[in-house]
């Protein structure tokens, strides 16, 4: 079943069960740690610890913010979408077949709601430009000796030269709590490229843009 949001990086929430159990034990990435903590909080909440939900909201709200903003929604609308996502969790939690994958359920729900909201907003005002967030000017150092603030700006500028689709995909992936593709590839013996081909293409474009701007990825990452 395809995602109705213009990008497809994750299966349906119902079967987004990879990673939390049956996964390699030595995974320490930030995303995987959050994935597991979210699962544990959700299970505690379902078992009657009502305050575990507050901790789950604390843990996942910043992630949902970035996932929703990947769709270029204005900030006030993005906040509405994040709230709709949380209320959907409270009301539909019984339909979540795999509690361990609750962070995946949340990000998929947020993306679907964001996509629905984007389409509705464009129908209402088709002249509204899709680039709703402010662009910051690039500040290129002639010597390419960028300090930390400069490198962030260079990367920001580079990512805004990508297509809307690539920019959205990279932001969703950057904040998604899916265990990393490299490990999945090792676990399954599949080439990494076949797991995230679009991601690979978008990152390649980003590298090409950086080269055009006169930087190497090593200088900004």
């Amino acid at each position, binding site marked *: 079943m395809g995602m109705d949001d213009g990008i497809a990086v994750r299966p349906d929430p119902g079967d987004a069960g990879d990673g939390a159990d049956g996964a390699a034990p030595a995974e320490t*990435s930030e995303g995987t740690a959050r994935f597991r903590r979210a699962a544990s909080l959700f299970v505690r909440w379902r078992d009657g610890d*009502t305050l575990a*939900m*507050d901790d789950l*909201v*604390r843990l996942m*709200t*910043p992630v949902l*913010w*970035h996932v929703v*903003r990947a769709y270029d929604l204005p*900030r006030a609308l993005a*906040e509405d979408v*994040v*709230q709709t996502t*949380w*209320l959907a*969790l*409270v*009301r539909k939690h019984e339909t979540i077949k795999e509690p361990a994958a609750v962070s995946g359920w949340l990000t998929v729900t947020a993306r679907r709601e964001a996509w629905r909201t984007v389409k509705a907003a464009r129908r209402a005002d088709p002249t509204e430009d899709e680039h709703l*967030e402010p662009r*910051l000017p690039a500040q290129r150092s002639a010597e390419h000796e960028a300090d930390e603030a400069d*490198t*962030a700006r260079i*990367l*920001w500028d580079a*990512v805004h030269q990508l297509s809307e689709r690539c920019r959205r995909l*990279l*932001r969703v*992936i*950057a*904040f998604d709590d899916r265990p*990393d*593709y*490299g490990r999945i*590839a*090792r676990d399954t013996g599949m*080439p*990494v*490229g076949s797991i*995230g081909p679009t*991601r*690979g293409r978008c*990152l*390649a474009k*980003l*590298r*090409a843009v950086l*080269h055009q701007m006169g930087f*190497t*990825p*090593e200088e*900004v*990452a």
Partner: protein
Amino acid sequence: MNSDDTRDVDGDVGVDDERLLAALRGVWEQYDPPPAGLTDRMIAAVAVDDVSRDLALLELQTDAERAAVRSDRERLTLQFSDETTSVLLHVSVTESGLRRVDGWSDPAVLAARLAQDEDEKEWTAELGEQGRFAFAGVSPGLARVRLSVQHPDGPRGFVTPQFQV
């Protein structure tokens, strides 16, 4: 880490994908962070929506109760409080015969919901400035309000006893 997908367009081995994504994450966190207070507002919204959650019960202040008895049929004022929180509700009758409930809370409200008939019917408050909130188009009947207010240590949830709207 497999290096097959880290070759850039020229075939050079580039920066590892995960490192580049981590750098991008940092850029978005820096340039487009969540709005201030977003997490507290989300905690509050969930608390008032989750009817299975036990919230602290506010007490109806008796002075206000006497005032309510004295007030005319068109307008009713109720005050609820505990040691930390105070909530004032004005109920008025609109031309259509429905009720409007204007509220004010100290500390300021983050989210509020009015429920009737064992939560069968619900109204979500529109939030105003300085702790004000309002429910429009409420039908007459017994109601209670669930609300979450901004305490220094985070959102705190309360529920009022039932009262006649």
